[in-house]
C-alpha cells in the first residue's frame, strides 16, 4: 500500500491541510444561522488531510529504515527529461491567456495551436499554418455564430 517516496505526498498533504487551517482561521468569528458554520467542513477536510499526510510520512520513514522497496530514481530521471513538453505547453497557454484580451481569439488561438503542434513535433510549415487557421476558424464560427458566445475580438473588434 505505501511506498518509500510517499513522504513527498505526505508533506504536500500536511502543507495543504495547514494552509487551509490558517486561511479559515479568520472566519472563526463569522456568525452563521446553522450550527456548523462556514469553517466546519473545510476544517474537517484539512485535519483529515493532515492525518493522511502524517500516516504517509510515517510509513515512508518506516520503509526507508527497513529498506524494503527499491528506489525509483531511474524512472524519476526519465520523467524529469520528458517534462519539457509539459512546461512548454504550459508557457504557451499562459502566453495565450495574457494575449487573448488584447489581440483577440482569431489571432491568439492559431498561435496557441501552432505552438502546441510545434512542441509535439510538427515541423512542416504548411501544416503549422493551415491546421491552426482552419481549426480556429471552425471553432470561432461554431462558438461565435452558432452558440452566440462573445469571444474576445481584440484587433478585429471593428470588423464584427
Amino acid at each position: 500500500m505505501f511506498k518509500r517516496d510517499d513522504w513527498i505526498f505526505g508533506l504536500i498533504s500536511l502543507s495543504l491541510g495547514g494552509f487551509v487551517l490558517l486561511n479559515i482561521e479568520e472566519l472563526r468569528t463569522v456568525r452563521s444561522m446553522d450550527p456548523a458554520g462556514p469553517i466546519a467542513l473545510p476544517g474537517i477536510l484539512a485535519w483529515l488531510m493532515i492525518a493522511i499526510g502524517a500516516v504517509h510520512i510515517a510509513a515512508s520513514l518506516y520503509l526507508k529504515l527497513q529498506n524494503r522497496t527499491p528506489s525509483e530514481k531511474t524512472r524519476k530521471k526519465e520523467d524529469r527529461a520528458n517534462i519539457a513538453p509539459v512546461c512548454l505547453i504550459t508557457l504557451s497557454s499562459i502566453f495565450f491567456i495574457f494575449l487573448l484580451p488584447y489581440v483577440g481569439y482569431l489571432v491568439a488561438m492559431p498561435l496557441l495551436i501552432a505552438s502546441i503542434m510545434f512542441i509535439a513535433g510538427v515541423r512542416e510549415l504548411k501544416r503549422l499554418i493551415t491546421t491552426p487557421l482552419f481549426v480556429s476558424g471552425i471553432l470561432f464560427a461554431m462558438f461565435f455564430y452558432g452558440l452566440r458566445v462573445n469571444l474576445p475580438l481584440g484587433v478585429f473588434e471593428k470588423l464584427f
Partner: protein
Amino acid sequence: MSNFLIGIEAVFQWESLLALGGGVLWGTIGGMIPGINATIAMALLLPFTWGMNPATAVFMLAGVYCGGEYGGSIPAVLIGTPGTNAASCTVFDGYELHKQGKTGVALYASLLASVSGGLIGAFVLMLVAIPLASVALAFGPAEYFALAAVGLTLICSLGEENVLKGIWAGLLGILLSTIGFDPFAGIPRLTFDVISLSDGLKMIPLMMGLFAVSEVFRQAMTLSATGSKTVLEEKTDTSFPSWSMIKKWIPCNVLSSLLGVVIGAMPGAGATVAAFLSYTGVKKLSRNPDSFGKGNPLGIVAPESANNAVTGGAMVPLLALGIPGSNSTAIMLGALIIHNVNPGPMLFLNNPEIPYGIFISLFVANIFLFFAGLLCIKFAIKITNISKPALLAVIIALVFTGSYAYSGEIFDIGVALACGLLGLSMRKGKLPHAATVLGFVLGFIMEANLRRALIVSRGSYWNVFFNSPISTVLCVIGIISVLWALLRPLFKKSKLAGCGS
C-alpha cells in the same frame, strides 16, 4: 387512455416530429461540444420556440434534453474529454476501451445504453409520474446528505493500490467545492481576494482540465519519451458489438436506468450524481470490480443508462407538481410560461396534450436519438484519423474555448490549465483524479444539505444521520462501504498469507 391518444396525436404531427428530430440532433451536437451541456443547448434554442405552439416547443426541448445527455459521451470516449458533466464517468472505461482499439464497443455501448436508458425512463415516467413525485418529496436535507455521502464512498474504491490516496483525492474535490461564497453565511471562503473565485470554481473547466488537459500533457510526454515525432497508427475496431456481448449489458442497463429515474425525480440531484452513483453501484455489485477503469463496457453502460434515464425522472416533479428539479426542466418550465401555459397538476386537466405528449415524445425522441447517435458517431469517429500532434492541439483549443464559453471569463481558461497540471501531478502520484471530480460534484450537495439538516435538527448530528429510516439506511450503507474499502486490503493480505502457508 383517451388522454394518451391526445398525446399521441400531438406528437405524430409533421411539425412536432420535425421539431423533435431537430431537437435531438441539436442536443447531441451540443452535448458533444465541451462546455455546452443539455441546459445550454436548450437555452440557446428557446428563442426559436416563440413562434411555435406550446406543445411543439416543449417536445423540441425534450428532444434537446435527451440528445444533450447522450452527446457528452462521444468526446468522452474519443478524446477523453467529457462533453457534459454527466459524461465524466464514461471517460474512465470509454477512453480506456478506445485506447485499446475497441472504439466501436465503447461508442455503441454508450449509444445503446443511452437509448434504452431513455426508453426505460420514459416508460417509468408514464407509469409512476405522480406516485414517484411523493417519494421525491420524502427526501429532505438529511436524506440528500446521506445520499451524497453514499455516493462519496466510491472514492474509497478508486484508490486502487492505496485506499488513503483515493480518500485524499476525494477530500481535495470537496475542498475545491468549498471555494467561493459560503451558501449560508454569505462570506467568501478560500478565495484569497480573487474576485473570479468568489463564485466558486466551475465544474466545466475543472473537469476538462483534470481529464483532458492532463491527458494532453501525458501524451506530449509520451511523444517526447518515445522520441518518434511521427504518428503511431493504431488499429481501431469501429464495428457494432455482437448480440452476445450486448445481452450481457442488459441487467446493468435496467438497474442503472431505474436508479437514474429515481435520482432524476429528486430535485437538485441530476444526471451527474445519477451517473456516479450508478457507476459505484455496478462496480460494487460486479464480480470483477478491478476491471472497472481499465476498459470494462459496463463502466460505460451504467453511467450512460442512468444519465439518460434521468430525463424521464426529471419530468416527474415538473409535470406532477410544476416544480423544476433541474436546470434543464427549469428551461422547459420557462418555455411553458412564455406560451402562457400554467404548469402544475392542473396541466393534466387544462392542457392534456402537453404532459401526455411529453410521455410519448420521450419515447419518440429516444428512437430518433439512436439514428442521430449513429450519424454523429460516423462523423466523430474520423477524429481518430487526425494526427496525434494536431489532435493534442485541437483538444487544448476545444477545452480553452469551451471553458471560456461556459462563463465568459478568461480566468476559467487559467483554471482549466491549472487543473491540467494538477491532474498530471495526480497521475504521477497515483492519485485518482476521478475521485476529485466526484468529491467536487457531491461536495456542495453534501455540505449544503448537512447544514440545512443541522438547522432543522437544532444542531443534533444524531438526528441528521439517524432520525429518518431513509437517511439511517443510507448512512449504514455508507459506513459499511467505507469500512469494507479500508479493511479489504487486510483481508486480501491474510488470504494470500493463508494460501502461502
